[in-house]
């Protein structure tokens, strides 16, 4: 292979693929039967870029030629950039050679839409098929579901891929109309629906016939751009909750909009990426998936946007003081998970440890709770606990006074605006 030419393509097509956040390589089990590679359910981040993001998969576009002109996208038709395309075999060779050197867990292949959605999807499937059948590759493969691709192709894709994803990108239908006039909302939903159905069929067949092949064992995911169309956090998270429920998504990713175009419909080039907002959305996502919260508890008509200065669990706790303080030695596991400053790992440790002795502050600190936040919401085997009748605003003030956040500069300026 000509390394110079490959290098140039890789440069263009990795650069164009990087706005897809997902790099997850977990959730799939694939044994190695005499070939190369495996997935044992646990993902591995082989490296991290200087922006702090995990590098787990070789994430590239097959091509950045595209017939669509979506305003938020760097590969849109009207954008004057260098275009390139990989041959199927080139992607296969790169994947194998990177994998053999332990650089990656596998491949994440996406593409601009050339010719038609079906031609594009068919080419993506070809790469995965070749890796699985000809190279005996058992590493992780994530394929993009191309909006508008046929059900038959999606059916085939799932036989070779571990995960399939289609990006919603714009959380509201009106936003999509504004920024991607040639794309229809239904086009995104169609492959999602097809994959969801196939996953269910294969799973129920597997229960009866053990030799049923795997179909997208790591499930589906999607991504939304945040901060491009003035949507509220409630809009974003209600959409997310809908996709989790309706399409059984494994993950929804939130991507703070990175200005890639001078377009009056969008934030100007050079506007800062809303990193703090993105962070709060992920925290909310975690509260939904792991902590037993319902989205309506965290965001609703009265609270359409998340607080930037404190985390969403603390915001919720400050609005629901009647539940606290909880006795850490007696309270239910699900309630302890709702205490600000106590994460799931600490919840687990507390539940185990309290079987053997009553826990006091020393124990809790060693276990690793965030004392500065948790102390206002719990009691334990100790006479010292918060006895003052503090208002929620006072508690918030005390917590902020004693904490340092890397984001402080981002919200303190906003506060002073209103003072």
């Amino acid at each position, binding site marked *: 292979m000509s*390394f110079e030419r*490959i*290098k140039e393509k*890789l*440069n263009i097509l*990795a*650069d164009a*693929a*990087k*706005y897809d956040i997902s790099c997850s390589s977990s959730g799939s089990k694939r044994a*190695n039967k*005499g*070939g*190369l*590679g*495996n997935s*044992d359910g646990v993902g*591995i*981040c*082989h*490296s*991290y*870029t*200087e*922006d*702090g*993001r*995990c*590098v787990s998969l*070789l*994430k590239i576009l097959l091509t950045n030629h595209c017939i669509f002109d979506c305003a938020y996208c760097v590969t849109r038709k009207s954008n004057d950039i260098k275009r390139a395309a990989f041959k199927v075999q080139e992607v296969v060779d*790169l994947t194998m*050679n*990177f994998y*053999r*050197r*332990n*650089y990656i867990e596998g491949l994440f292949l996406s593409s601009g839409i050339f010719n038609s959605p079906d031609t594009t999807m068919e080419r993506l499937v070809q790469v995965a098929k070749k890796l699985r059948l000809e190279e*005996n590759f058992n590493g992780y493969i994530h394929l993009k579901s191309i909006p508008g691709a046929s059900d038959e192709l999606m059916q085939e894709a799932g036989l070779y891929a571990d995960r399939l994803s289609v990006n919603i990108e714009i959380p509201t239908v009106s936003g999509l109309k504004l920024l991607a006039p040639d794309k229809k909302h239904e086009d995104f939903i169609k492959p999602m629906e097809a994959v969801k159905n196939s996953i269910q069929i294969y799973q129920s067949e597997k229960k009866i016939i053990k030799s049923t092949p795997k179909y997208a064992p790591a499930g589906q995911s999607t991504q939304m751009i945040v901060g491009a169309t003035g949507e509220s956090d409630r809009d974003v998270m209600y959409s997310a909750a809908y996709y989790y429920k309706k399409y059984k998504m494994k993950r929804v990713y939130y991507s703070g909009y*990175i200005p890639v175009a001078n377009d009056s419909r969008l934030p100007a080039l050079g506007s*800062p*990426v809303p*990193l703090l907002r993105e962070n709060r959305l992920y925290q909310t996502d975690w509260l939904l998936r792991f902590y037993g919260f319902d989205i309506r508890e965290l965001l609703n008509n009265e609270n359409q946007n998340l607080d930037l200065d404190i985390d969403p669990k603390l915001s919720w706790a400050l609005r629901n003081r009647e539940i606290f303080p909880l006795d850490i030695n007696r309270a239910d596991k699900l309630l302890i998970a709702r205490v600000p400053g106590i994460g799931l790992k600490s919840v687990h*440790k*507390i539940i*185990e*440890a*309290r*079987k*053997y*002795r009553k*826990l006091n502050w020393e*124990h809790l600190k*060693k*276990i690793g709770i965030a004392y500065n936040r948790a102390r206002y919401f719990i009691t334990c085997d100790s006479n010292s606990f918060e006895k003052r009748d503090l208002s929620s605003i006072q508690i918030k003030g005390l917590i902020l006074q004693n904490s340092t956040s*890397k984001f402080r500069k981002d919200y303190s300026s906003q506060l002073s605006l209103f003072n």
Partner: protein
Amino acid sequence: MKTGTQLFYDGSYEGFLTCVFSAFEEKLNVNGIFTEATSQGNMFAKSMNITTDLEKAQRVISGLKRKIPSESYRHIYFAFLSELEGIELLLFQYIKLAFKEEKFSSKDFGNPIILKINQISKKVSREKHRMEAFVRFQLTKDDIFYATIEPDFNVLPVILKHFETRYADQKWIIYDLKRNFGLFYNLQECSYININFKSTEHLNSSNTSIYSTSEIEFQKLWQEYFESTNIKSRKNMKLHLQHVPKRYWKYLTEKSTWQN
């Protein structure tokens, strides 16, 4: 009060377990367990040299496995691999608890010894996971994928299985330069090896008398990819360093620089 005894052993896991065996058998009041190589310990205290005895070690292992679940046993082995100063004595206290306390549980996190061993074992697990991520193979002329590592803890024995399963169809070597031993997989099985490096030329990827001629090209492609996939407007070096601490850069193809 009886004065304590210090035990000295050869540094192996079996050697340590032999210490545990002797301490129980002879009802010793142990107040330190050290490897022979170190000059730690109190020169005025009573000391004993313990010779590694595989049979005795095996009896301690079987005893432990009867008494505690395999997950808790794993904490003992992993914590031992940390090689931290004083870990042997701490583990000895832990094992004493496991044998003597009727209600022993490795999840009794209110007990400082149990919590400490759990945390150290977690640290070793993390290093194991890191090495599974950070190993960078380079293809030699003899078709062996070779990698050098210098992990914080002695994790080579516990990453064996991962690499053996994953890279079943290629020959490979992972060499721990800090502890001077390595793993060699020959397409059939894995074995421990020692290499007597005469120079540091094996660290030079562009040396074509050792490495395949395309090796350096793939490394350049990987570096290129690593650069291109970074989003500059989201730069966050603090997070980057938290995930990839500088001490690991040396053998990471994407973070190292070489002369052309």
